[in-house]
């Protein structure tokens, strides 16, 4: 709410989406510097599976197409490889902008057709419960829920990993779980102020 007072009054409300995304991004996003050159999409390994290339998505953000941008699968297909970031002539923090769009989409409940938010959510739940990630619980829960038909073909791989002692059946918990929870709880409270 506090951000509303700092916005220049001349800008029509729908065009403030760019500002909103930029403001919610950790550090300086430089998103407004995008020159639509397309280096990002051309460098992106999984671009073929995105409904909008990063360049296209940034144009949509600039045009204030809030719902369409937050419904895009692009941030969820992003693999955080930073290829585009090192190639972008305007040094736009593309990976961080993608993180921002993901969390905005989760808050607005606008993502579609992706199991990714659920995967991230499960991962975070485990970390908040144990302080460590727990691959076995995470993968099993995710596959059971979203890809039950893939499970039989995954079973032999899982068994192999198990006999090679590469999967732990029980999660490890850190000692100072109370401290970590206190930190995360306060952090979440701070997030709500400008979120």
């Amino acid at each position, binding site marked *: 709410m506090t951000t509303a007072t700092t916005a220049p009054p001349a800008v029509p409300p729908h065009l403030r989406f760019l500002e909103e995304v930029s403001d919610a991004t*950790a*550090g*300086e996003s430089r998103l407004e510097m995008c020159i639509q050159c397309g280096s990002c999409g051309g460098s992106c*390994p*999984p671009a073929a*599976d995105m409904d909008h290339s990063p360049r296209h998505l940034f144009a949509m953000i600039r045009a204030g197409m809030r719902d369409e941008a937050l419904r895009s699968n692009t*941030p*969820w*297909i992003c693999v*955080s*490889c*930073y*290829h585009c*970031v*090192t190639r972008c002539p305007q040094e736009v923090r593309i990976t961080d902008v993608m*993180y*921002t769009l993901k*969390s905005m989409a989760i808050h607005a409940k606008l993502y579609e057709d992706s*199991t*990714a938010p659920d*995967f*991230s*959510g499960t*991962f*975070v739940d485990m*970390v908040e419960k144990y*302080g*460590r*990630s*727990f*691959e076995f619980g*995470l*993968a099993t829960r*995710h*596959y059971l829920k979203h890809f039950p038909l*893939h499970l039989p*073909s*995954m079973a032999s*791989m899982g068994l192999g*990993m198990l*006999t*090679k*002692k*590469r*999967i*732990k059946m029980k999660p*490890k918990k*850190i*000692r100072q779980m109370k*401290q*970590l929870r*206190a*930190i*995360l*709880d*306060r*952090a*979440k409270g*701070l*997030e709500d102020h400008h979120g």
Partner: protein
Amino acid sequence: MAEYLLYPGCSMDSSARAYQQSLEAIAGPLGMTLTEVDDWNCCGATEYLGISTTPAYALIARNLAIAAAHANGPRTLLAPCSACYLNLAKADHGMAEEPRLNANVNEALAAGNLHYEPGSVDIRHLLDVMVHEIGLDDVKAKVTRPLTGLRVAPYLGCMVPRPDYHKRWSDPEHPTELDRLLKALGAEVIDFPLKTHCCGGHMTQIGPDTAYELIRRLLQAADQFKADVIATLCPMCQLNLDAYQGATNKHFGADFEIPILFFTQLVGLAFGFEAKELGFGSEMVKANHALKRIGVEPPPPTEEEERTKRRRRPRKDSKSLPMPRLSGERGAIDD
């Protein structure tokens, strides 16, 4: 001996235990003393940052605060996992650059009686330390079993050379550090064009088809260069290329069979360690062929592996009637 604070990360004692084991083996000869960060927590991988910013950074910063507080401890915080390395570096860099983030994260840390001043630990990846701090001359001096004739694809993946906040690598897309290290071990290093391309990351979980395509590109490129093995420096890359190689083959009707090893395992072999001391045998795509190539005895199969092998039904000879056979007879046990 140089002292390092070690942030192992969650994979090191499970899916990447070969990385942990081989690192422990070579640390001594390399003159490294490793002290684990006390009660460290998960770095959040690439998941937490996509949920909410301040908690994600606070999660990472708890580790930085504990590392910085190690009394009279070393300043170098060593991360062998690429995602952990990047997250630690990202939080440190973000807090230094953005006062609002720094204030928020420290306010959150205060709830756990912690504080972190950005820049108070030097966050480095294991490869960076080996090449730039220990140095290739020292590495070379310890080589007793050169990896002569072993063709290796040097694969760094994305999160170590990029975004490279402290400009430590020779290039963000085609760095040569891993190539030079492997050459110092006597290996034949291929000029791997996809050395910093993505392994698919978490897409093996959330969008397998996207991941299989990225994995295929890497395997195919290594195969075209006739690499015997791919050397990785990241638990996620190793897991995706190794454990999902079978699924990728199935998806594309391909038959790649390329062992994916941690670079520390190759360092250990060159230093004269036995395969079993370096975690060999835990890879899903067996490295036995590659080991024999350099005259190393592959580790014997584990008890569990023997048991699951025996439980398999004998393959029938297509020309004969199904008859009981004695163990040891040709065709009796699937080998």
